[in-house]
């Protein structure tokens, strides 16, 4: 379904909109905003991993000069039902469930006074036993994180227990020549967006609330606020500013905003709350730590006959939703053919920081297990792991068991072959383990698939767009989604200009403002371009038809004889005969009828499940004396459907590798197993990779334009984070023969694996 005429804007890499403001320091992020009379908020946080609060006396704090208001659970205990299913969190509660949990909040004239005031709040804690380890939390006698939810949606600490089966794994195992069993662990890691969370709340005297926040979604948070505050949605205006300093799944939360709104109402003034980096690390959601126990049956020819996985997901102290555990199973069905698949999942509460969505949500942890397992299998049956993947992969036309949808396009094989060629796959050690030497080199790979809207085939996956004409022939596109740095503003403008036959610079956008933009979902899950891009294309095509209709009267020609390009309506048979959009809208007849004010809306429902695929290859060198791993080169071959803005796609893929390498080699938010306190909530002890740490990167974009999605696109925001860690892990296996099952692949873990063969 290629567009009839050649694309001129989609597929090019113009300058990203608003970037000039970013590089000159003019960009106003939430944290840069100021309102008249604005106060600053600080949160008192729990020193205990579990405790009841029997009372809070804040009279001494309130007596300090400059302190305006304090709130506690008595002001803010609201339970709300978010869209994700089970209850997630309270504004403030009379029970605390992790070290860092919200206790009381102060608004003061300066941040310094607010911070000082926290020390004058007297809290009567009744300390309770707590539980940090997810497996211990599943024991019947474990301390219970949410006693109030028992019999509602919790059984002990188990929020979610799900079993999903396709085929019959027991029958499958009977056909297996080899059965491989492994146990994998993936750690708690942090989004670490460079801009810490910041939010600003302001009430007017008519009872309207306006809130600005560094956020990935406007409407979902607005709805949660309305439910919690028992207010009509129309009285809350939630705005995501034009500049958001990164999200990665971590800026997607209501509880803090509920507390701040209540504080600002009590204070009677606008209140700004910006989190410190330390708070950012241990009080905002993290990636969930996971345990995966796999049992896999293959024939001696290297064909999957049964795949079984038991997944335990540590959801921390407050669940993001039951979806966290069950979704992981999806990926077992989307990449390789296997008639018999079974997943048993548990979402388990612990007294640790809340965990939730993070780039490659559930996909990144389970792919580590699945793709490491393949190299174990390949070694066991003495088969090349690339050949194994090629043999088992799902192809175009194959049915995805998860949702019964046939694969509509796939560049998976191309990513495997092109990636293998780029890394020099033939150079790898034929069998795991390089010849004896201190430094050993190896090459490994991993493939992946990821989310696409309509995962189950039934989920609502809707995009909305409103397009308004301006009298000069420029346009305003209104979308209920946020640009969090990934480039949505430019990409949507490209789609709009392409479909309209317009000029990119003349497409202006207003994003993520619940008062002015149409309802939008969320900038997450690699879905914006597919969902909302579809609506943008449709509304731009409507605008084009409207302009042609008006121009046909002016030009005395049939509509069918006209087309648009570069901001003109022109005669197909005589392209020199044209009229600019601005001339059409300025025409007195058009003006006097009010036809120059064109406001159009489109809604797009995603018609088909379109997952992206990819393969990654790593070359590593392992120091067998220290266990240190150096990644020499990483090749990421990625099936992106079609790159709307190739340079921006590269940026997403490169950034994903950076996050994936951190996940593989260095990053872990450590929690004291005894006290539950975070041990390394700062950039000094929690290591992000820096410029000089990165390996050589090779990005290969594969574009098997999908027949169903708008311009054939797939969602690219999360892709490369997924397969980076297993590719590196498999390269270490190829270099040394050591089997590492636990991330991160620190010197300590690798050295232990070298000594014992596995860790």
């Amino acid at each position, binding site marked *: 379904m290629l567009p009839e005429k050649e694309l001129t804007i989609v597929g090019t*890499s113009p300058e990203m909109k608003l970037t000039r403001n970013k590089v000159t*320091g003019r960009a106003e992020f939430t944290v*840069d905003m100021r309102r008249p009379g604005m106060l600053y908020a600080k949160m008192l946080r729990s020193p205990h991993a579990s405790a009841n609060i029997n009372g809070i006396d804040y009279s001494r704090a309130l007596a300090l000069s400059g302190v305006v208001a304090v709130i506690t659970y008595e002001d803010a205990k609201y339970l709300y039902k978010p869209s994700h299913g089970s209850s997630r969190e309270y504004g403030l509660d009379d029970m605390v469930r992790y070290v860092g949990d919200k206790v009381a909040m102060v608004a003061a004239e300066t941040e310094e006074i607010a911070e000082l005031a926290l020390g004058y709040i007297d809290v009567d804690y009744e300390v309770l036993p707590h539980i940090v380890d997810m497996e211990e939390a599943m024991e019947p006698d474990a301390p219970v994180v949410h006693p109030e939810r028992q019999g509602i949606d919790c059984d002990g600490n188990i929020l979610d227990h799900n079993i999903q089966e396709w085929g019959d794994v027991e029958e499958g195992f009977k056909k297996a020549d080899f059965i491989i069993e492994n146990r994998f662990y993936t750690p708690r890691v942090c989004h670490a*967006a460079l801009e*810490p969370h910041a939010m600003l709340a302001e009430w007017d005297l008519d009872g309207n609330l306006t809130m600005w926040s560094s956020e990935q979604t406007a409407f979902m948070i607005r709805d949660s606020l309305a439910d919690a505050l028992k207010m009509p949605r129309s009285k809350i205006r939630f705005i995501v500013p034009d500049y958001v300093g990164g999200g990665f799944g971590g800026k997607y939360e209501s509880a803090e905003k509920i507390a701040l709104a209540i504080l600002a109402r009590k204070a009677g003034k606008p209140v700004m709350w910006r989190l410190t980096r330390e708070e950012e690390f241990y009080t905002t959601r993290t990636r969930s730590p996971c345990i995966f126990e796999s049992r896999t049956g293959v024939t001696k020819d290297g064909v999957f006959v049964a795949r079984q996985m038991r997944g335990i997901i540590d959801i921390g102290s407050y669940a993001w939703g039951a979806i966290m555990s069950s979704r992981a199973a999806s990926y077992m069905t989307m990449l390789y053919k296997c008639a018999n698949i079974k997943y048993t999942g548990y979402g388990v509460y612990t007294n640790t920081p809340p965990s939730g969505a993070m780039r490659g949500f559930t996909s990144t942890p389970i792919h580590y297990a699945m793709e490491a397992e393949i190299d174990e299998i390949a070694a066991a049956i003495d088969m090349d792991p690339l050949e194994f993947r090629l043999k088992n992969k799902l192809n175009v036309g194959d049915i995805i068991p998860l949702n019964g949808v046939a694969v509509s396009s796939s560049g998976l094989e191309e990513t495997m072959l092109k990636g293998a060629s780029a890394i020099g796959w033939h150079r790898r050690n034929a069998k795991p383990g390089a010849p004896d030497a201190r430094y050993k080199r190896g090459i490994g790979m991993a493939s992946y698939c990821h989310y696409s809207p309509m995962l189950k085939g039934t989920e609502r996956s809707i995009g909305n767009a409103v397009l308004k004409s301006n009298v000069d022939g420029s346009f305003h596109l209104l979308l209920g989604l946020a640009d969090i*740095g990934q480039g949505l503003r430019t990409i949507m403008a490209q789609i709009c200009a392409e479909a309209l036959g317009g000029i990119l610079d003349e497409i202006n956008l207003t994003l993520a403002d619940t008062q002015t933009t149409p309802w939008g979902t969320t900038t997450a899950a690699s879905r914006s371009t597919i969902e909302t891009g579809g609506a943008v294309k449709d509304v731009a095509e409507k605008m084009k038809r409207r302009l042609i209709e008006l121009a046909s009267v002016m030009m005395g020609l049939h509509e069918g004889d006209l087309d648009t390009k570069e901001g003109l309506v022109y005669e197909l048979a005589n392209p020199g005969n044209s009229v600019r959009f601005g001339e059409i809208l300025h025409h007195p007849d058009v003006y006097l009828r009010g036809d120059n004010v064109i406001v159009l809306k489109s809604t797009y429902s995603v018609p088909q499940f379109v997952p992206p695929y990819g393969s990654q290859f790593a070359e590593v060198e392992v120091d067998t004396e220290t266990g240190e791993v150096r990644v020499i080169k990483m090749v990421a071959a990625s099936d992106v459907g079609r790159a709307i803005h190739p340079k921006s796609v*590269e940026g997403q893929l490169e*950034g994903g590798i950076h996050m994936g390498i951190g996940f593989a080699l260095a990053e872990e938010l450590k929690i004291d197993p005894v006290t539950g306190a975070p041990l390394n909530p700062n950039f000094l002890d929690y290591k*992000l990779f820096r410029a000089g740490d990165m390996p050589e*990167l090779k990005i290969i974009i594969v574009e098997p334009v999908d027949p169903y999605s708008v311009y054939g696109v797939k969602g690219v925001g999360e892709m490369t984070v997924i397969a980076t860690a297993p590719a590196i892990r498999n390269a270490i296996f190829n270099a040394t023969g050591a089997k590492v099952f636990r991330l991160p692949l620190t010197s300590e873990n690798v050295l232990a694996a070298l000594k014992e063969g596995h860790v």
Partner: protein
Amino acid sequence: MRVAVNFKINGRDRTAHVEPRTSLLDVIREDLGLIGTKEGCGKGECGACTVIMDGDAVPSCLILAAGVEGKEIITIEGIGENGRLHPLQEAFVRYHASQCGFCSPGMILTAKAFLNRNPNPSEAEVRDVMMSNLCRCTGYEKIVEAIMAVANGEVA
């Protein structure tokens, strides 16, 4: 108790009256309203608050404002002339080196101080000096590419 401190910022002489414990970052952002200098951690670990002081790239969050008497400070607002972007800013735009953009001012100033001293660096040297600044979006590829483009005279 406040102390008066005189310094030059972006070419202009200023006097600020500061508490002895106030950081240079707070004076730049709160007193002077120059929001291009960002706070990413407040502990000198991320580089988002980098400014150039007497020719050196420094984390302004770790510098006490009371100690900048007589110093010459350049923030992101102080580079580029006559409405034109500085070549590093231009290169960051052209090579798509900013995604969210929160780290960009600090990155650009670190690179500027470095290139002033070493106009013809190798890529390895650029990567080495940029270790002081964190980016969570780009994987650094396009940032390094942009800086090298300026060093090689491809963007002027």
